[in-house]
């Protein structure tokens, strides 16, 4: 029991150390009010904090970063980005030189492990494509969604959720089988350290299972339905994003850290490639923030950017230098790198929907292969 107490204290102490204080609305100073009047402004506080020193980045009339590029002329670093317009049947492939190709009418899409192919879904099919959009194979299934592809160059698996539950199929479209009929909510996540081993949520428990053998490595009761599961590149940590908190499990399914903020929702999270830095989107009232925590170093969460309204998906660049943040309220994307912000405006026009409403674009985990 002393061991259990010791382990638990380590976890609980970390949670205590990284408790974020509740957001306290601040009254604007007279100087700031004057600045806002001069600038005809509502506010965007782009709070860039290397070592924590906030800089008010932009103030202008409309919400958003001033001097944003009018279009996505290029990505700031090498790689290719999949952009999915959720529930409206559009998937685009954006190259680092700005070249953009619409791949077809799909509801979701993800890369294969080495970026040579894609897996996409529509209402009745799971489809493997090449980056030109040509279909390699398809599988008829009811309401497939949340596909995730893993493996080596020669041996891969695709996990996806369908009306019947969580299923897995080989990368060549063969051997499709049901894994767990109760796993129907959160997208699954392949263990990056173990072949064909999948983490998924089933009845309030995170399960780690080898999908070839059926063997369950562990179960971690979490009591909530997570919105996302994210492995670190080395498979040491699995982050469970569940709205009010993010629980970081270690490779044995034990809780290592929790991240929470009183009165706030944690809407998105993503490990930076090759590290244990974890970016998280925090929504509190009418304001959103992007923070980065280092799972190995308990302490303060570093604030990268803050602004009014809602932030959407986030995606790290393959070289981990840039973090892309969708900002639907401002109709902008932000590329964040340390204190540097590169903003792109008019996102709705560039990824249009047939009903001309603003898109809810999915980007998470879709910036691939630098």
């Amino acid at each position, binding site marked *: *029991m002393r061991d*259990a*107490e010791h*382990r*638990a*204290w380590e*976890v*609980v*102490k970390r*949670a*205590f*150390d990284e*408790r974020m204080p*509740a957001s306290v609305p601040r009254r604007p100073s007279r100087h700031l009010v004057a600045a806002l009047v001069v600038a005809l402004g509502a506010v965007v506080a782009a709070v860039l904090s290397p070592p924590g020193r906030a800089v008010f980045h932009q103030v202008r009339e409309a919400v958003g970063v001033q001097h944003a590029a009018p279009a996505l002329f290029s990505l700031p670093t090498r790689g290719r980005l999949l952009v999915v317009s959720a529930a409206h049947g559009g998937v685009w492939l954006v190259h680092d030189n700005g070249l953009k190709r619409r791949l077809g009418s799909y509801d979701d899409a993800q890369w294969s492990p080495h970026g040579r192919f894609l897996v996409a879904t529509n209402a009745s099919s799971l489809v493997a494509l090449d980056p030109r959009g040509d279909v390699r194979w398809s599988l008829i299934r009811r309401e497939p969604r949340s596909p995730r592809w893993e493996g080596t160059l020669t041996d891969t698996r695709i996990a996806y959720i369908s009306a019947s539950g969580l299923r897995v199929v080989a990368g060549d479209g063969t051997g499709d089988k049901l894994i767990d009929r109760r796993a129907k909510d959160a997208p699954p996540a392949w263990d990056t350290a173990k072949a064909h081993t999948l983490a998924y949520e089933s*009845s*309030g*428990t995170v399960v780690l299972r080898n999908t070839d053998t*059926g*063997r*369950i490595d*562990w*179960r*971690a*009761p979490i*009591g909530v339905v997570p919105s996302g599961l994210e492995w670190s590149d080395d498979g040491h940590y699995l982050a469970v994003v569940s709205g*009010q*908190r993010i629980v970081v499990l270690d490779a044995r399914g*034990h*809780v290592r850290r*929790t991240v*929470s903020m*009183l009165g706030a929702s944690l809407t998105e999270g993503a490990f930076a490639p090759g590290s244990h830095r974890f970016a998280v989107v925090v929504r509190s009232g009418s304001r959103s923030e992007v923070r980065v925590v280092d799972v190995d170093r308990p302490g303060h969460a570093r604030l990268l950017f803050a602004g009014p309204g809602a932030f959407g998906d986030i995606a790290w660049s393959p070289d981990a230098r840039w973090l892309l943040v969708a900002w639907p309220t401002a109709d902008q994307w932000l590329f964040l790198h340390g204190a540097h912000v590169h903003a792109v405006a008019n996102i709705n026009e560039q990824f249009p929907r047939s009903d001309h409403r603003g898109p809810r674009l999915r980007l998470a985990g879709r910036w691939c292969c630098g």
Partner: protein
Amino acid sequence: MAERAWILGAQRGSVADFERLFREHWPRAYRAAHLVTGDAAAAEDIAQEAFLAAVRNLDRFDRRRPFAPWLHRIVVNRAIDWTRARKLRAEVELGDWLPGAPAPELDGSALGHIAELAPEHRAVIVLRYILEYTPGEISDLLDLPRGTVNSRLRRGLDRMKEQAE
């Protein structure tokens, strides 16, 4: 009085005060979870999760109220949920190869039979005879009518007595 000071200190950010609170309450929280679940790993997770809930709710905690009932309410309810879920899994997932849970290490011959009880009966027995809450307090902790608590205590004790004979 010391506990109130610890809670106040923890609310102001004192790790030392929060650790005193943790050390004071961990043993009984863990033991309660262990007795209800019969599984050491689950007990560790459940007790730990209860303290994580305490961290999350620390700023809103009313210092005039005792800490233990609040913590034990979380522990026992989650332990019941875990035990029910395990029973359900055992029925529907025969293909799972999860290693078996270690046998609970119980002291006292009567308590050795607690694992045979239904989770609801285990919970009230643990709260009454291990954590020493009154039936009225158990009624509040578990949101149960007082009569239900009494009947569960009676049935639980009867069942344990039968097994001991």
